[in-house]
């Protein structure tokens, strides 16, 4: 390497030209806080996994993305119940049995 550098003393020039650059003070703080945040996040995740399942379920219920299925289920169930009530009402309006036979006979006699 030294022969190649020759009279120029290129190695000395390179050492002077490419001196280490000190990072700005706030970079150190920035990186450290990011790393701390990641470490805390990871620790929190680990501890939450270790918690009871019900805690996780409650957390899931608080997430609006998980509300679609229950809402859809309530809507479908509501519609089915409504249809049943309607059928029952129609059924009640229509006379049946002895009363129906008597009524029909009376109508025919008239």
């Amino acid at each position, binding site marked *: *390497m030294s022969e190649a550098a020759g009279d120029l003393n*290129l*190695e000395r020039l390179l050492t002077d030209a490419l001196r280490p650059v000190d990072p700005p003070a706030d970079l150190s703080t920035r990186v450290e806080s990011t790393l701390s945040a990641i470490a805390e996040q990871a620790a929190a995740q680990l501890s939450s996994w270790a918690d009871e399942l019900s805690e996780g379920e409650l957390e899931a219920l608080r997430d609006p993305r998980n509300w679609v299925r229950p809402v859809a289920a309530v809507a479908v169930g509501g519609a089915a119940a409504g249809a049943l009530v309607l059928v029952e009402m129609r059924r009640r309006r229509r006379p049946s049995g002895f009363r129906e036979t008597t009524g029909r006979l009376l109508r025919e006699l008239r």
Partner: protein
Amino acid sequence: MSEEDERNPPEAGAAAPVSKAELDRAFEDLYRAHLRDVYSYAYYRVGNHHDAEDLTEQAFLQAYRHFERARRESNGRPLRPWLIRIAHNLASNYHRDRARKPTANIEAVEPPSHPHATERVVEGREELREVIERLDELPEDRREALIMRFALGMSNREIARALGRTDGATKVLIHRAIKQLEELMTHE
């Protein structure tokens, strides 16, 4: 003990299984010991402080994610080449993503000030500026090797590990880089 080991003693307890807290402490030590190296490398690769800061931060975040494995696989060897390799890959991505030269390339890098006598400072700074300009004309791998060698003071073996080359190939790379730089300087 090899040249590399003398410069960078093995990471303490690197091979032993450790707790998360111990791992975090070890990473903190690594970070404090090599922040300046990673930043210097990033600065000379991207040519400006803003992007160098981002690149340094990304490098340490990546390093943190893979630290446990790297430590296990290093067999006690220094982790600086691994860190610089991460920074090297990020810098390559940086240039590829932009598909152009750095916003302020290495030519725009101002030579650092020196504690010399006044007349020597003026004369010396011109010389240094020329070195930096010529350095930018070298192929990327040669320029990188010189940055690692002179800005970071890395040994040939460390540079070889950071660049994923053999020790012999790295020695040749550095030799050729200096020879080419000398030619550029003298045939101006």
